[in-house]
């Protein structure tokens, strides 16, 4: 594996390989074992956009493997504000480091970076485009909690139009054979190309506007944030957000085996009372970013 750019590039075998390696990293990720296989290696962590989990978990992953991190989060103190192209920034950082993790506000930025870098590029989110490491940690969490990646009934809930994580996740889940339900407010429905892909592969379940309609058959309730800025009228936003509130009553209607996931940050779509329920797995999911990113770093930097 050289670059990690898009979930479309990953075969089922490659995904399983990453997840298996991530499982082997769990003890080190928790600090219960020591692994310094990347000692002396340097990761370039360049984030042109805000990030909490992705940046910190990559940096933690590199540290847990004995490597070090250089980079920036935000462009204020860099030459980017002077108008430096992404191509030049990448050329420069690739000379300093053994791999680059890149987040950028423009779609296709990671693909461009591969053309100017001598070291592997890992896409940590480019605009509304791909965020493959999020997808991998989602799959890792699903497999960890459910014991398998196929034959599951998954309900994607919230802003399915603009949420990049749900697009990547839908494509990835469709590689394994699942039933995928789409629950979103009007106007924030899943883009046609994703729906067509699910239909063609026979994995399209139900599309509806209320989580209650699918909760009883759901194995995985994957919730995403509904962004206020999508609604010109704040009253309309409040009305819609209220209908998509995940509370203990709704969670209790699901099967006993059901789990609740969320890529975080959440604002108020899952109310805090759900956190204590055994179904709540979103903080486990956030932690899983570390072993999954350790696995990826050991593959692209360490050549494992």
């Amino acid at each position: 594996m050289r670059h990690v750019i898009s979930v479309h590039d990953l075969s089922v075998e490659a995904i399983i390989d990453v997840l298996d390696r991530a499982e082997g990293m769990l003890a080190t990720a928790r600090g219960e074992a020591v692994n310094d296989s990347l000692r002396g290696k340097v990761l370039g962590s360049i984030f042109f956009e805000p990030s909490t989990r992705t940046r910190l978990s990559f940096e933690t992953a590199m540290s847990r493997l004995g490597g070090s991190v250089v980079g920036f989060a935000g462009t204020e103190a860099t030459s980017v504000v002077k108008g430096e192209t992404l191509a030049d920034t990448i050329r420069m950082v690739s000379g300093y480091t053994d791999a680059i993790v890149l987040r950028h506000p423009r779609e296709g930025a990671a693909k461009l970076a591969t053309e100017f870098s001598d070291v592997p590029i890992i896409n940590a989110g480019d605009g509304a485009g791909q965020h493959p490491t999020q997808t991998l940690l989602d799959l890792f969490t699903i497999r960890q909690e459910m014991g398998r990646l196929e034959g599951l009934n998954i309900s994607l809930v919230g802003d399915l139009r603009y949420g990049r994580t749900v697009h990547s996740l839908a494509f990835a889940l469709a590689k394994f054979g699942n039933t995928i339900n789409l629950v979103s407010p009007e106007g924030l429905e899943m883009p046609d190309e994703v729906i067509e892909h699910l239909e063609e592969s026979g994995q399209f379940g139900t599309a509806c506007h209320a989580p209650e309609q699918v909760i009883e058959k759901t194995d995985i309730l994957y919730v995403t944030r509904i962004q206020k800025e999508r609604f010109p009228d704040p009253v309309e936003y409040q009305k819609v957000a209220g209908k998509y509130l995940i509370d203990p009553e709704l969670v209790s209607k699901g099967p006993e085996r059901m789990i609740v996931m969320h890529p975080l940050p959440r604002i108020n779509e899952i109310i805090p009372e759900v956190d204590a329920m055994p179904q709540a797995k979103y903080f486990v999911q956030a932690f899983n970013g570390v072993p999954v990113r350790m696995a990826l770093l050991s593959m692209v930097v360490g050549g494992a």
Partner: protein
Amino acid sequence: MSDKYMKVERIEHGTVIDHILPSMAFDVLRVLGLSSDKTMSILVNSHSKKGGKKDILKFEDVELSAEEANLVALVSPHATINIIVGGKVVRKFNAEAPQVVRGILTCSNPNCISNQNEPIITEFKQSDDGSHRYICTYCERDIIDLAKMIGT
């Protein structure tokens, strides 16, 4: 009718692109990016023998390569290319939409990195589902209204 009143003169040597979709001749010219001091004839909304309308382009003393000719299919899929030598058609073929288009087109996604001031050439690949959609190599989005995205 005498030659004096012919709409478009016959050419001795060059290329005729026939069966261009009506009113698409100017888009074909843009996609070919031809700038020539040779005579060029453009016939728009001409009556087709098969019924309906079509556009025709004639280039004197210019022989389009197959690669250039195939670009025509981007905006007019059923166009035919005729290479004329000594007043006779020596080669005739259909334009076939190229698998990959480099340069020429601009991505219709304004947030695509290829629309920024980066030192790259745009690249689009034809979708593999036979729908003749072109997908940006960078942002993976379909190009929307392809004719409008020529060299913009």
